């Protein structure tokens, strides 16, 4: 297990650092959508939240029509909204309507921001085994066909096909039941498989909500969606993707966002964030794929780590003189079994810090030997903002302020003191295979926020910065908690 090192300065912050910051209050968030550099997600009841950087969220998104659990997808240069409206249910019934509408913008301040008239694409009459709310969209990348699933615990989850040009129901399309026992579903496609993600458990009970997300998969978008032990989701099957843990509970309403090849996140809401007073908040988590199944990664809180290259397994370290640990050598050939065992102490920072140069120190990779120049403390920097799913962090040698930084010539250095400069701030993302990638926020002499260059193994011993490439282990790193 990881141990967390809370520095005095950041100890207050870390408690909140895990969740999205600002006012990320939402229930049933739609899949994250991007419009003119801002991120949007829309929730139950109308409205939604906006983020300039993907980390700090505030209210202000607008969606008319009320109702439950919308989804939003960009198709061409327009955004298609789908949402469920309880058609009356005057006595709390189950007659719902699924509606679609378009907008050219998500920004309420844009002159293009205008919703088309909502069109009904499906309905439940209140007596049939279906509750036509909680819809989601899937644009099948293999066929260009547009699908929607909807429904709640009240009966079946249903699949319909829509026309991607109009957002209308495809002529003659028949509803198909694809699951029971879940709600707020989502459909995704990856690598020859269609995945149906449903929310299981109990919602709307604060810190006692048992909401969790399960998945089944199929070779056909029309199912059958089967779980890892062969159980059809029509029989209640489903493999867990995410449940409670890490001071949040009740994850629901899955959404997948692909950031780069091999870099994916899932969005959801937590029914309750224990650190935010038990409110329902937006959750963004790395999305990992294990043997063809989606699994939520852990929220990254920082800590102290060995940063190991996936290429060779070497450790990122400062290029300083190796200081030997002095001790009485006990070769195996002359061990006296009767002598008491004396543990060997770890090398301490104070043992070596005096040998390190004063200015910038080069960075390289080498065998991990549990030495201070190989141990990095990673801490979120609240005032530095964040990216989609996480805060920028500083990476310093444990117990010091000496910080890992990018240089103008796309190399690495360890500067004597962290100043908050963009080249000293790091975007750390867990990849779909569980490894990590690390990007400096800025590169000296280059405009804007860096989204191209990542920490990269130029050779076994030589780290550098190079363009992101998921297909090579040179671009991947492991964080081994210390």
């Amino acid at each position: 297990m990881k141990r967390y090192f809370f520095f005095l300065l950041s100890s207050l912050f870390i408690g909140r650092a895990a969740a999205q910051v600002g006012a990320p209050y939402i229930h049933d968030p739609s899949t994250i959508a991007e419009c003119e550099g801002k991120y949007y997600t829309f929730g139950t009841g109308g409205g939604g939240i906006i983020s300039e950087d993907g980390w700090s969220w505030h209210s202000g998104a607008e969606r008319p029509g009320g109702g439950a659990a919308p989804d939003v997808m960009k198709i061409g240069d327009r955004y298609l909204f789908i949402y469920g409206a309880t058609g009356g249910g005057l006595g709390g019934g189950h007659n719902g309507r699924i509606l679609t509408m378009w907008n050219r913008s998500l920004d309420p301040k844009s002159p293009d921001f205008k919703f088309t008239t909502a069109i009904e694409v499906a309905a439940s009459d209140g007596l049939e085994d279906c509750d036509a709310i909680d819809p989601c969209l899937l644009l099948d990348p293999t066929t260009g066909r547009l699908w929607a699933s909807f429904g709640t615990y009240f009966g079946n989850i249903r699949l319909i096909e829509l026309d991607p040009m109009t957002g209308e129901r495809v002529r003659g399309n028949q509803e198909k039941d694809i699951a029971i026992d879940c709600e707020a579903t989502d459909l995704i496609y990856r690598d020859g498989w269609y995945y149906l993600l449903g929310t299981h458990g109990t919602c709307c009970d604060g810190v006692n909500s048992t909401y969790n997300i399960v998945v089944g998969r199929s070779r056909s978008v029309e199912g059958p969606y089967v779980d890892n032990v062969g159980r059809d989701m029509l029989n209640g099957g489903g493999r867990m993707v995410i449940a409670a843990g890490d001071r949040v509970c009740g994850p629901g309403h899955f959404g997948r966002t692909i950031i780069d090849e091999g870099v994916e996140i899932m969005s959801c809401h937590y029914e309750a964030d224990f650190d935010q007073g038990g409110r329902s908040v937006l959750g963004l988590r790395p999305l990992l794929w294990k043997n063809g199944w989606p699994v939520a990664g852990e929220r990254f809180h920082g800590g102290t780590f060995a940063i190991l290259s996936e290429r060779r397994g070497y450790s990122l370290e400062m290029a300083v003189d190796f200081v030997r640990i002095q001790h009485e050598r006990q070769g195996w050939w002359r061990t006296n079994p009767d002598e008491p065992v004396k543990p060997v102490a770890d090398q301490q920072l104070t043992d070596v810090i005096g040998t390190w140069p004063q200015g910038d120190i080069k960075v390289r990779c080498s065998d991990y030997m549990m030495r201070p120049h190989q141990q990095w403390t990673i801490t979120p920097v609240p005032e530095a903002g964040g990216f989609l799913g996480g805060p920028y962090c500083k990476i310093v040698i444990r117990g010091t302020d000496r910080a890992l930084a990018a240089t103008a010539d796309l190399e690495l250095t360890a500067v004597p003191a962290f100043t908050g400069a963009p080249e000293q701030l790091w975007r750390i993302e867990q990849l779909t295979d569980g490894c990590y990638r690390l990007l400096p926020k800025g590169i000296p002499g280059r405009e804007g926020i860096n989204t191209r260059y990542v920490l990269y193994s130029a050779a076994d011993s030589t780290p550098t910065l190079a363009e992101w490439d998921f297909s090579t282990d040179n671009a991947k790193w492991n964080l081994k908690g210390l």
Partner: protein
Amino acid sequence: MLNVSVWEEKGFYMRVFPFFFLYLQQKSSENIIYHTMKRFILVCFSAFVLTAEAQNPIIRNQFTADPTARVFNGKVYLYPSHDIYPPEGQRQDWFCMEDYHVFSSENLTDWTDHGMIVTQNKVPWVRPTSYSMWAPDCVYRNGKYYFYFPSAPAEGGGFAVGVAVADNPEGPFVPEPQPIKGIFGIDPCVLLASDGNAYIFWGNGRCAKLKENMKELADDNPRETVKFGNREMEMVGVHCLKDLPNRQAEGPFAFEYNGNYYLTYPYVRQNTEVLAYAMSKNPMGPYEYKGLIMAEQPNGCWTNHHSIVNYKGQWYLFYHHNYFSPRDDKRRSACIEKLYFNADGTIQEVKQTMRGVGINKATEKIEIDRYSNASAGVTTGLIDTVNTFRSYQATLPTKGSWFKYDDIDFSMIADGYLVISAKASDNTEFCIREKNEKGKILARIKMNVKPEEPAGGAANAPMGRFRRDMRGQWLTQTASLEYVPKGIADLVITNEGNGALSVDWVQFKNRQLYFTPVDKKAAAATPDERGFIRRWRLMQPQKQEIRSNVIFTDSWLRETFANELAKLSKLKAIWYAMESPTYNMKLFHFAEKYGSQAYGNLFWCETVINCPEEMTDVRLAAGSNGASMWWLNGEEVLLLEGDRRMVVDDGVSKRLTLKKGRNTLRGAVINGPGLSDMCVRFVDEQGKPIKGYTIE
């Protein structure tokens, strides 16, 4: 695009086609203002799913003008013009048609759009941006389908008539490279006469014989020299309406019936068009004027255009009206009425109705607001004046107002319920009755649309959030049918409350079959393919006060089930022997029918497992919504606690032995506000189903 100023420059055509010119002037001088709809709305609706159409207008997702109906292969095919909103750069207050669609129906209620068959930029002789694909016709002869259509030729002015040929009525149609020589005008109609010849009519009533190839005028047609001012022009064929009422006549439609030829046509009697007809013993006349088929459009829509067809022994008039474009009579929609002949062969005048023709299946989505008859004060109007294809509503303003809709076929409804789209201005109630406003009630629906203060005041305030003001909102209401009419019935909707009520559509459905009662003498059942036990004795649901399933802890359940079990033998509850058509027993629906409430019940169930031999190391596997407990031969074997959903094999018992002969399996399923359900089977140590027993 037709442009009158161009026509004026070309005085020649003005002189050649004086009637047609007048007609254009009349149309263009109308000062009708309308607002162009955004093109995307049009796009949005162009692919709308048509599942059932019956009422007028018959096609409700696009405009359909000048409807020519023909019967081919036992089906009615409809070849209308396709009005659209003019694109930018085109004259906005004029007719605009760029292509043709064809529709078909077997019952005049369900229409299938077979899509576009001919478009202006794929016909070699047509000016590709003329948007003048006006009224067409289609006939079948010698194994081919010939589609006739007028348009503006690329070279020269005016209108010509072209032919496109297909092997099937839906196409694909291949247009001829040149229009028919000798025809200058619009609105072709082809008559296949019993004399073996084909005659083409066009414009203001001119007629000529076609060659056997259907693509050229016959050489032996009469010719006449017509004088236009100083110029003389040779015209082919005869002008059948020459001496008849013919002011601005157009759209001729000719047919033959009982030895008579009928030439029917719109003309301007006073200010706008009527549909009139003349009769003759010869296809090319002379024709004798007989009178009107349909009077002027009641709302002032300038044009009307029609066809007459006999389908399954009944004559029908197809015509158009601007129902979906009330401010602009250049966008029109096809309608149908029945048409009757008098004994002397004359035609009875036809009145326009909203109801139209055809018998609706009760299971269709019926636009019931297009009523046949209504009490005073009932009004109809577009639901959305911008998005007009949202169609119409009928409003019953006060208590006692009603409307009637004829001819709905209930023969397929057994255990039925209805779904109706309605809105109310205030709390009200209404009935759906048979025959008349005092007739037998099928269903009574209360609409409580006014928000109420939640009971319990401030303490229940959070619940109040879920109650919204539903006044004036379209709501889908459902109700079980107290009475199901036999066969074909007329329905009446009566407003019986104090709010104004508006109705859009109605649909009847059969309830799904969830349980079949098992006869006492029935043979023993077996587990299904996957080993599920589908036959149970279910006790009448026991009502429970459960507001939330969070109370289903192990100890609460144990105590509750123990108490209830102790009471069980003393209860005088009814038990039902039931078989489920699905692997799971949908207890929720059992409660709907046999319980006092759908939610909040305890269900007791029992079944007898009869084993031919002792079976060891079997497990009971169950899933339930919500919590449940299971006993085999009186011994507790499984508890599923908490707020469960029904998952196959959610939990299994320890290894059990099923003794030879009868084993009693008992279960209790308890649920608050959920969809109560259960599925039960026996599995072996590998989790595979066990099936080698019978169920008594």
